[in-house]
């Protein structure tokens, strides 16, 4: 109600205005100064905006801008000093609240002052290069209040104390904290940084340095990581609640450095709870936490990776050099697969499928698998085992999974050609004995090998399958043509194997029994009649036979034996006793094979259709053998296995090695010629590198061998040494 009255009085003042009045500027300023006082004293409701605005306008218009501006600075400074002492007087916890309240007051006052002085702000200030009113208000607040000696340190200490309190579990007024930090930000990011952030980061570093020391003495690795993670999240949350967003990176940096980086080594290697223990105990959660925390720190992941790698290498090396384990190749390979699965799972679930970790895993496997030169053989044996019996009753998808895993191990092999060699042998045995479980699985693996290593690698393996199929057709043709003439004689099944595709060795055919010999002859005539220009050689070491035998008490059995065993047993049709020498003479079977087949006929319990004198495990040249009249078996069909060497014996292994080395020679030579044909002239070192590069998908050629092959090529005049530079080779077209 009193407002209109006041207004009329002020309009009176206008009427009295005389521009020529020498005290005009003074009077006008007094009105404005009074208004500023009233604004700061919360008495603004009685003020007339119109009047004040026009007064300020007139002062600027009549060139009293400078007076207006300096008056403003003085008046505002006066009020801020008052505010300052009232904040200083605030007791204890009320300090921040008082500061916050006064800050809000000042902001409101500043806005009103700016409204009145808007014309000055727009015209006088830019041309006189003065600080605009709003900025001036903030600067004065900063200089007079925040930087006052009694407030500056007290403010900082209070803020740090409150944060420290919150860290130790107290509940603090986050809204108030936010207002205060926002005030510091409003005063300029440098104020926030210099008056708060810098010390905040320092005190945080001190705090976490102490705390981490305490943790590491009292906690195990997993527990420590949990605490570190919690602290990190707390700090991030703190920033989002009441600090400037830009502080997040800085404070997390501090926490990372103090809690993680400083103790990284100790944590990873911590006894009974470090990285290796986590891996052994499959502690995915702890591993995942370690990964996500260490990732924040430079070289953190490198440390984890290095420790993991050396652990894998060490345990892998132990595995592949453990002689006990090597006795069972299938178990050996299964163990490799289990290790791989374990680490795959760790990397997948804890290390977020980090590529660098996968690479480290692969290189570790490559490292230790190749430490054992028999790994290719064992992997092939594992496949053999699976394809012979292991895959029965397993679904097609699971078969694929197993084969894929085998392929993965295969990829780690450096000597892929050795694997090929063994694989061929084992495949041949499976095919010829008809032991393979699933044709699809066999072919699927060959397709995989083909995609991995190319057509050349598998062409012979595929040839073996073709031979099997053709042989089936040939046998049908044979019986259709000559079946009628055969009468009651034994039935023959021939598999015609292409030379080169199969792992055959030149072998002396043993003496077959006459009954068999005649039908063999008939087949030979039939086959050579239909295919001209071919030669057939009997591989008597690879065949099998089914024999019908009658034992004492008229017990009849069907014996499933090898061709060699058949030859031996047939000799007993005429007599009951034969000495080793007699058998050897009659059958002409190679001594080692003969001994092995006699062993299986006479020394295996339940399968002993022969009896040996003296009774012992080993066969001596002086032994005598008898037809075992008393042989019994609850089965009608008795399968007499050969005592097969599952693993190759040492000499056999040497032999395979040698053959592999032989096979490598032409490949190395071919590579050298290919390279030289393209490059014409090349020096020795470069040839070696190029050859190694070309062949490494199959094997790692030995530089010495490459040198020998080059020499051999020079001898055969494919290459010559350069006459000027002896290190250079030239290709001779």
């Amino acid at each position, binding site marked *: 109600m009193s407002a209109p009255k006041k207004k009329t009085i002020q309009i009176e003042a206008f009427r009295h205005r005389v521009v020529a009045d020498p005290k005009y500027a003074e009077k006008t300023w007094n009105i404005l100064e009074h208004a500023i006082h009233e604004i700061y004293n919360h008495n603004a409701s009685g003020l007339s905006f119109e009047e004040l605005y026009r007064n300020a306008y007139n002062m600027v218009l009549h060139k009293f801008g400078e007076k207006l501006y300096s008056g403003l600075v003085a008046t505002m400074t006066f009020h801020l000093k008052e505010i300052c002492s009232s904040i200083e007087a605030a007791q204890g916890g009320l300090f921040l609240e008082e500061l916050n309240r006064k800050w809000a007051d000042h902001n409101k006052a500043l806005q009103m002052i700016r*409204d009145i002085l808007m014309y000055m702000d727009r015209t006088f200030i830019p041309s006189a290069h003065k600080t605009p009113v709003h900025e001036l208000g903030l600067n004065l607040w900063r200089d007079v209040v925040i930087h006052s000696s009694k407030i500056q340190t007290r403010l900082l200490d209070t803020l740090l104390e409150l944060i420290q309190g919150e860290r130790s579990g107290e509940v603090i007024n986050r809204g108030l904290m936010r207002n205060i930090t926002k005030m510091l930000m409003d005063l300029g990011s440098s104020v926030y940084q210099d008056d708060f952030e810098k010390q905040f980061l320092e005190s945080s570093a001190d705090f976490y340095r102490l705390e981490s020391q305490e943790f590491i003495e009292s906690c195990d690795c997993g527990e420590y990581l949990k605490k570190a993670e919690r602290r990190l999240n707390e700090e991030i949350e703190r920033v989002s609640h009441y600090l400037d967003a830009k502080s997040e990176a800085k404070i997390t940096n501090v926490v990372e450095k103090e809690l993680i980086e400083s103790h990284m080594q100790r944590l990873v290697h911590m006894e009974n709870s470090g990285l290796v223990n986590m891996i052994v105990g499959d502690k995915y959660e702890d591993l995942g936490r370690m990964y996500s925390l260490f990732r924040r720190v430079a070289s953190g992941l490198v440390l984890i990776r290095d420790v993991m790698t050396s652990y894998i290498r060490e345990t892998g090396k132990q595995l592949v050099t453990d002689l006990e384990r090597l006795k069972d190749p299938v178990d050996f390979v299964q163990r490799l697969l289990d290790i791989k699965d374990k680490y795959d799972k760790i990397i997948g679930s804890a290390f977020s499928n980090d590529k660098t970790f996968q690479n480290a895993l692969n290189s570790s496997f490559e490292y230790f698998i190749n430490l054992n030169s028999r790994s290719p053989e064992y992997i092939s044996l594992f496949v053999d085992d699976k394809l012979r019996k292991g895959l029965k009753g397993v679904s097609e998808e699971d078969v694929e999974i197993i084969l894929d895993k085998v392929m993965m191990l295969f990829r780690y092999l450096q000597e892929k050609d050795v694997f090929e060699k063994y694989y061929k042998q084992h495949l041949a045995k499976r095919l010829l004995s008809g032991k393979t479980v699933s044709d699809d699985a066999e072919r699927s693996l060959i397709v995989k090998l083909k995609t991995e290593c190319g057509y050349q690698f598998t062409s012979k393996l595929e040839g073996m399958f073709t031979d099997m199929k053709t042989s089936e057709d040939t046998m049908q043709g044979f019986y259709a043509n000559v079946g009628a003439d055969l009468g009651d004689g034994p039935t023959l099944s021939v598999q015609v194997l292409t030379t080169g595709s199969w792992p055959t060795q030149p072998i002396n055919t043993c003496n077959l029994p006459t009954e068999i010999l005649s039908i063999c002859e008939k087949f030979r005539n039939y086959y050579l009649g239909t295919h001209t220009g071919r030669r057939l050689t009997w591989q008597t070491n690879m065949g099998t036979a089914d024999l019908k035998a009658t034992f004492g008490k008229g017990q009849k059995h069907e014996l499933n034996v090898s061709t060699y065993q058949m030859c031996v047993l047939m000799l007993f049709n005429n007599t009951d006793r034969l000495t080793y020498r007699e058998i050897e003479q009659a059958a002409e079977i190679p001594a080692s094979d003969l001994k092995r087949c006699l062993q299986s006929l006479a020394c295996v319990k339940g399968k002993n259709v022969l009896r040996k004198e003296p009774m012992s495990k080993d066969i001596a040249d002086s032994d005598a053998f008898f037809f075992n009249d008393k042989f019994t078996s609850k089965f009608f069909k008795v399968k007499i296995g050969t005592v097969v060497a599952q693993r190759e014996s040492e000499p056999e292994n040497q032999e395979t090695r040698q053959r592999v080395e032989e096979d490598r020679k032409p490949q190395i030579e071919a590579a050298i010629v290919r390279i030289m044909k393209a490059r014409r002239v090349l020096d020795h070192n470069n040839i070696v590198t190029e050859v190694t590069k070309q062949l490494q998908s199959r094997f790692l050629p030995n530089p010495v061998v490459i040198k020998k092959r080059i020499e051999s090529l020079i001898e055969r005049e494919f290459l010559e040494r350069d006459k000027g530079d002896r290190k250079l080779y030239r290709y001779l077209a």
Partner: protein
Amino acid sequence: MGVQKDRIKFNVGGRVFETTATTLANAGRDSYFGALFNDDWDLLHSNNSQEFFIDGNPECFSILLDLLRTGYLHIPSNVPERLLYREAAFYGLINHVRSAKWGPFNGNRLRYCKSVTGRAPGDGTAIRAGPDGGCAVAHGSMVHVFDWMLEEHPPINLDYQRVNDIGWVNADSVVISTCERLGTPDGGMGLFTSSTGELRYKFNVVHGNQTKSFTAGALSFSPDYKIFSSCKGRSNEYGIGVWDQVTGKQIDFFYESSLGDADKLQWLNGRNCLLVATLFPRKDNCYISILDFRQKRMVWSWSDIGALVTVDEKRVRDAIAIEETNSICVVNEYEDLGFIDLRMEGGGVRWSSRSRLSTGNMLDEPCYPKLALHEGQLFSSMNDCISVFCGPDCVLTSRLRRSDGGSICDFSIGGDRLFALHSEENVFDIWETPPPIL
């Protein structure tokens, strides 16, 4: 009820106006009305039935209220523009007036707005449009600065040395480049506050730790606050100097004697390079080069040395790079446009016959053609008119000519206005695009 509360009555200098708070809200917070309606000043809210007195000019208030209502500015002939501007400044509405006065620049819709006659004795040298619609005009050794209201500010001079080029750093600062006075540190380059004409700082050329006096020529600016100028000193200080706009300190110098006399510098934003053109008749031949200061070398150059002199002897009189088409547009004294491909070295000028204009009326004092570029539109001045070319093929689309104007010695586009400076009369013209009506 809302309607009732919304209504406001003003008594301005005795005339009563009634309007709504919504209309006044268009003035924005940073204005008289914005502050008046802020909650801190709770006068009006308690007694909104009463009229509110303002000691102001009712005519102007009515124009400004109309501007707030409609966004359209109409100044009746009986109201002096200066009076309106002053009233607008009181209410904090000067920017509203400015943006309503003319529309966004379009070369094909320009209307002649007004001519300003200066007081300078000599012929005009250069005119440069400021970013907010003002301009600076150089006559001899003086630079006259006008704001967008065409209000003249105190003139600028640098030791009263002959002015070679002017440039606006921002709406409040102008750089001028002048000749040196032999044997004294006078002349060179200076940065001035446009509204007061006060010298803020002079730019120095430092060579071998010694500050040298120099003559500053053509100017150019880059968005990262650098100033470029062609410089001519006494000994070795020929080339392009680079200064920081904020600190005024020299930050680089590209020594190359042929560049010290350049007629034109143009900063190429896309390439981060500077185009330097030195043209006939300042030199016997024309040289255009592009400098890359990051690599500190000339990355492209062209010259007409050795080019076949055609019958009508086409000499390049001005050049401007058009980055969108990777070419440099040049013009000869017959106002034929030509193009040089920037993507290859050593290419020739492809003169465009289509752009050839019928030669206008030859004036007593012909002026060499000048080129300017604005948002894809190419402008070329020749004698008493300015031609506007559009599109990728630079088709002539408009021509600006004033019936009684003399020949145009320089023109400039900026702040959505085009300024054309006449050589013999001491006059410049302002061309504007009218604001759209509905």
